C-alpha cells in the first residue's frame, strides 16, 4: 500500500528503486588470486592484476559466478545462459585499470522477485530487474596526509553483485523492509555477509515523487547509503525535499546526491550534465560467460531453505503465529537457534523464550545471537526443567538471568542455589495450612465469594517457600482446603 505524502497542494506518491552492491563471499577477487578479505593492512591484498600492471589479464573467479547464480536462484530469478563482461571506462585514482569490469547489456541474472512482509501481515512483491557481477574499486584516503591523496587497493577487484530492483517501492519503510529482506536472503544463501558497516553491502536509492497515477517524476540517485536506518532517513528527507521543490514551483534536477547522516540531509554530488560517459564495450580480455543447464541445476540442488519457506514451515510444523514465525525465520542464525531449542520440546514455549527473554537479553547486551552467552542446548535444558516441574516459570527467569551472567547451565545453578521447585505435597500442604491458620479474615472473605483473595494465600505460601512451591499445586491445594 502506497503511503502518500501530504503536500501543501495535495497528495504525492513516492517511487523508489534500489541498487544494492553486495560483496560476494569468495576467497579471492573477481579476476585475480589476491585475497578478498576485509581489514588487512593497506595494499597487502593486491596482485599484479589488481594494480593494473602492463600486460596483466583478468581471469574470472568461478566461485564468484557460482555465488551470483546462487543469489539469482534464491531470488527466484532467471539465470542467463550467456552473459558478457563489459568495461566501464573512467579515471579515478582508486581505479587502477582506468575501467571497471562490469556487466552492462547482458548480466548473469535477469528478472526475479522478493516478497516483503509489511506490518499488519500484509505482503508485497517487489521486482528484481537484474543482478550483475562487477569489480569493486579501491579506496582513496584524503585525510591522512595533507596535500596528498593516498590509495588503498585492497578492495580493488573484490567481487560485487549489483542487485537492481524495479521502482516498485513506495515508502521509506518499504525500502527498509526490502533491504532487510534482501540481506536476510543473502545471508541465508551464504553469498554475502550483509555487513553494511564494513561496506560488504551498500545501497544506492533512486527516488522520485509524482501525483498518484501520473507518469514517473524526475529521479535523484542517493549514493552509498550504508545502513538500513540511514536509508529510511535519506529517502524520507529526499522525498520531502522533492515535494517542497515542486510545490514551490521549481523543478527536480536529475542528479546524484549523497546522504549526510550527521545533518540528516541529502546533498548534490554531481548533475546529469557532469555525468561520465562510461564508454561501455565488451571486455576483449574475457570470453562471454556461458553456463550450462547442469551447472545451474547443480547449484539449485544445494540451495538452503529460505526465509519465506522457513516461515511457512514454522507456522505449519510448530503452530507458531505468522508474526512469531516471521521474526524467527528472518535470520538464519536465529532460525537455527530456535529450531535447536524447539526440537523435541514445546515449540510455543521455545518461541516465547527465544523472542522474549533471549532477545531482550541480547538487546541489552548489544550482541548478536551468534555470541549469545546462553546456547540453544542450555536454553533447551532450562525449558525441560520447567516442563518436568522442577522450575516454575518465574524462577526459571531468575535461573536464566544467572545463566546469562555466569554462562553455566541451568541444572547446576538450580542445584547450587537450591531453586528446585517444591512439588512435595506434604510440604506445600503444611505451608497452605499455615497460611489458612494465619488468615482467618481472608478465609471468611473467600468463603463469602471473593475468589480474588486466593492470590493473598498464594503469596503467603510462596513467601513461606521462598517462591519455590509449584504454583499449580499451590492453587489446587488451596482451593481444596479453602473450599472444604
Amino acid at each position, binding site marked *: 500500500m502506497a503511503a502518500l505524502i501530504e503536500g501543501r497542494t495535495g497528495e504525492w506518491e513516492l517511487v523508489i528503486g534500489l541498487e544494492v552492491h553486495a560483496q560476494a563471499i569468495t576467497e579471492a577477487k573477481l579476476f585475480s588470486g589476491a585475497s578478498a578479505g576485509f581489514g588487512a593492512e593497506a595494499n597487502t591484498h593486491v596482485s599484479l592484476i589488481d594494480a593494473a600492471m602492463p*600486460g596483466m589479464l583478468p581471469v574470472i573467479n568461478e566461485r564468484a559466478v557460482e555465488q551470483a547464480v546462487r543469489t539469482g536462484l534464491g531470488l527466484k530469478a532467471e539465470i542467463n545462459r550467456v552473459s558478457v563482461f563489459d568495461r566501464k571506462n573512467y579515471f579515478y585514482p582508486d581505479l587502477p585499470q*582506468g575501467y571497471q569490469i562490469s556487466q552492462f547489456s547482458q548480466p548473469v541474472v535477469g528478472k526475479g522477485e522478493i516478497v516483503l512482509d509489511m506490518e499488519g501481515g500484509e505482503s508485497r512483491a517487489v521486482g528484481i530487474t537484474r543482478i550483475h557481477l562487477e569489480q569493486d574499486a579501491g579506496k582513496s584516503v584524503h585525510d591522512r596526509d595533507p596535500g596528498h591523496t593516498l590509495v588503498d587497493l585492497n578492495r580493488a577487484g573484490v567481487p560485487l553483485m549489483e542487485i537492481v530492483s524495479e521502482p516498485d517501492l513506495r515508502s521509506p519503510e518499504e525500502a527498509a523492509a526490502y533491504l532487510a529482506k534482501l540481506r536476510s536472503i543473502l545471508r541465508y544463501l551464504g553469498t554475502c555477509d550483509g555487513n553494511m558497516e564494513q561496506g560488504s553491502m551498500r545501497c544506492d536509492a533512486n527516488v522520485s515523487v509524482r501525483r498518484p497515477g501520473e507518469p514517473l517524476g524526475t529521479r535523484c540517485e542517493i549514493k552509498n547509503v550504508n545502513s538500513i536506518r540511514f536509508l529510511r532517513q535519506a529517502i524520507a528527507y529526499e522525498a520531502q525535499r522533492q515535494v517542497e521543490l515542486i510545490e514551490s514551483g521549481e523543478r527536480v534536477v536529475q542528479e546524484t546526491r549523497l546522504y549526510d547522516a550527521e545533518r540528516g540531509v541529502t546533498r548534490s554530488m554531481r548533475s546529469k550534465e557532469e555525468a561520465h560517459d562510461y564508454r561501455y564495450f565488451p571486455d*576483449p*580480455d574475457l570470453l562471454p560467460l556461458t553456463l550450462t543447464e547442469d551447472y545451474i541445476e547443480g547449484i539449485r540442488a544445494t540451495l538452503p531453505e529460505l526465509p519465506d519457506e522457513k516461515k511457512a514451515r514454522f507456522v505449519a510444523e510448530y503452530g507458531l503465529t505468522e508474526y512469531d514465525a516471521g521474526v524467527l525465520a528472518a535470520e538464519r542464525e536465529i532460525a537455527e537457534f530456535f529450531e535447536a531449542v524447539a526440537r523435541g520440546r514445546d515449540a510455543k514455549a521455545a518461541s516465547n523464550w527465544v523472542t522474549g527473554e533471549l532477545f531482550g537479553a541480547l538487546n541489552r547486551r548489544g550482541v548478536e545471537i551468534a555470541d549469545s552467552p546462553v546456547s540453544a542446548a542450555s536454553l533447551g535444558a532450562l525449558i525441560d526443567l520447567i516442563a518436568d516441574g522442577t522450575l516454575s516459570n518465574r524462577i526459571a527467569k531468575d535461573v536464566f538471568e544467572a545463566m546469562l551472567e555466569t554462562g553455566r547451565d541451568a541444572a547446576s545453578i538450580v542445584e547450587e542455589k537450591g531453586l528446585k521447585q517444591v512439588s512435595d505435597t506434604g510440604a506445600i500442604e503444611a505451608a497452605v495450612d499455615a497460611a489458612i491458620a494465619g488468615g482467618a479474615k481472608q478465609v471468611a472473605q473467600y468463603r463469602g465469594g471473593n475468589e480474588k483473595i486466593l492470590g493473598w494465600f498464594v503469596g503467603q505460601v510462596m513467601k513461606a517457600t521462598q517462591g519455590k512451591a509449584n504454583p499449580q499445586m499451590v492453587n489446587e491445594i488451596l482451593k481444596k482446603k479453602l473450599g472444604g
Partner: protein
Amino acid sequence: MAELTALTIAEARDALARGDCSARELAEAHIAAIEAARDLNAFVVETPERALADADASDRRRAAGAAGAMDGVPVAIKDLFCTEGVRTTACSHILDGFVPPYESTVTARLRASGAVMLGKTNMDEFAMGSSNETSHYGPVRNPWHRRGDNRPMAPGGSSGGSAAAVAAKLCLGATGTDTGGSIRQPASFCGIVGMKPTYGRCSRWGIVAFASSLDQAGPMTRTVRDAAIMLGAMAGFDPKDSTSADLPVPDFEAALGRGVKGMRIGIPKEYRVDGMDPDIAALWDRGAAWLKEAGAELVEVSLPRTKYALPAYYIIAPAEASSNLSRYDGMRYGLRVEGRTPAEMYENTRAAGFGAEVRRRILIGSYVLSAGYYDAYYLKAQKVRTLIAGEFAAAFERCDAILTPTAPNAAFALGEMIDDPIAMYLNDVLTVPASLAGLPGISVPAGLNADGLPLGLQVLAPAFEDETVFRVAEVLEQAAGFELAPRGAG
C-alpha cells in the same frame, strides 16, 4: 666469428648439438654484431651480460644432456614483452624506467626452451605505427637501401626493431607482435620471414596490450623453418590468458617438407588494390605460378568485403587501445607529471607521456565508444568483422590456403609518410583482414622491386591450421631463392 651470425636457427641448433660452437661463442658473436650496428637503432635495451650468463647456463645444460629446443639460440625480444628485471617501456615515454617484476608467458617459454636473450628491440610506441617512427627512442633504420640512394629507409612497424635486427644478422630470431600486420609488414620490408599465428596460439599474458582482441605474438626469423621452430617454443595454452586456446601445440617443423601437391591455393581478386606497386602485382603472379608448378591448384576466391576491413580495424583497434591505455595514469609506475589535483596529474602525465600517434588513436577510440556514436562506429565495425570472418570461412571451403602480397608497397624512406596517417594506415590493407578474422598468416621474402628493396608474399590459412601456412611458405621460399643481402647501398 662472422659466420656464426649468418647461421639459421636450425643450423645453429645442429652446430651446437655437434659441438662445432658453444652458446657462449654464438652470444659473443651477436653481442659484437649489435655493438657494431648501433646506427640501426634496432635495440632499445642491450643485455649482453644477461646473454652471456644465459649462454653459459645453456652450455652447461647441453653438457648435462638437458638441452631444450632453442637451447643456446640468441634471440631479441620486442620491447612490448614484459621481461623480469629488464626495462620494458613499449617504447613509450609514459613507461619511463619501468622494470617489470614478472616475465611474459611467451618469453618465459622461450627461456625455458633455452633461448638466450640479447636485448629488447625498438618498435612503434605501444605497437601503434607501420614505420617504427612513433618510437620514443627514435626510428629504426632498415638495413636495406634503395639502389643508388643512401636515405635511411623505414623498417616497417610496429616490430621494426625485431625485423631490422634479424635482417642485419644481429640475432638469429626475434619475437614480434602483430595486431594488424605488425609482424608481417616489417618482415616484408626487411626481407625476412614473419609469422602471425592464429589468435589464441600464444598467450598475451605479460605483453603490453594494444588491442586485446587482435594482439598476437609470433616469430621473426630468416627462414620458414626457423619460424616453425621458434613458434613451437612460444606457443601453448595459458590459463592466465582467458583468450588463449586450450589446444595442444603441433610440431610445426614436422609440417615442413610435405610440399603443396594437391593443395588448392586461393587467389582473392579483391586484394589487387588501387595503388599497388606493379612490381608487387608481378611478384604475386610469380608466387602463384611457383605454387602451381609445385603441384598446387590455383582457385580464384572472392573476399568482397576486404575494402571494409581497414576502416573496421581502425575503429576496433583504437577503441580497445583507448581503454587498454587508461592504466597509464602516472599513479603507480612510469612517468608522472605532477598536478594540483589527481585529474590534472592525469592530464599532465598523459599529455607528456604519449606521442602524437598514440594520442590520435586514444582520441579516435574514445570517440567511437562514446554514447551516441557506439552503434554507428564500434558496433558496426564489429558486424563488419563478423562478416569478414564469415567470408574467409566461405573462401576456405574452396581452398586450403590463400596467397596475397604482404603489403601494397615496399619500404619507404624515413619521414616520407609520417605526415600522412591515412597513407600510413594503408600499409596494413592486406594484413588487417586476416587479423580481424584471427587467422594465421606469414610473410615470406620472395623478391626485390625495381629499387632493389625486398618484397614479401603472404600466406593465410584457416584458424589453427598454422602448419598449412608454414608448409606453403616453405615452397615459396625455396622457389624464390631469396638472398638476404641488405646494406647493399651504392
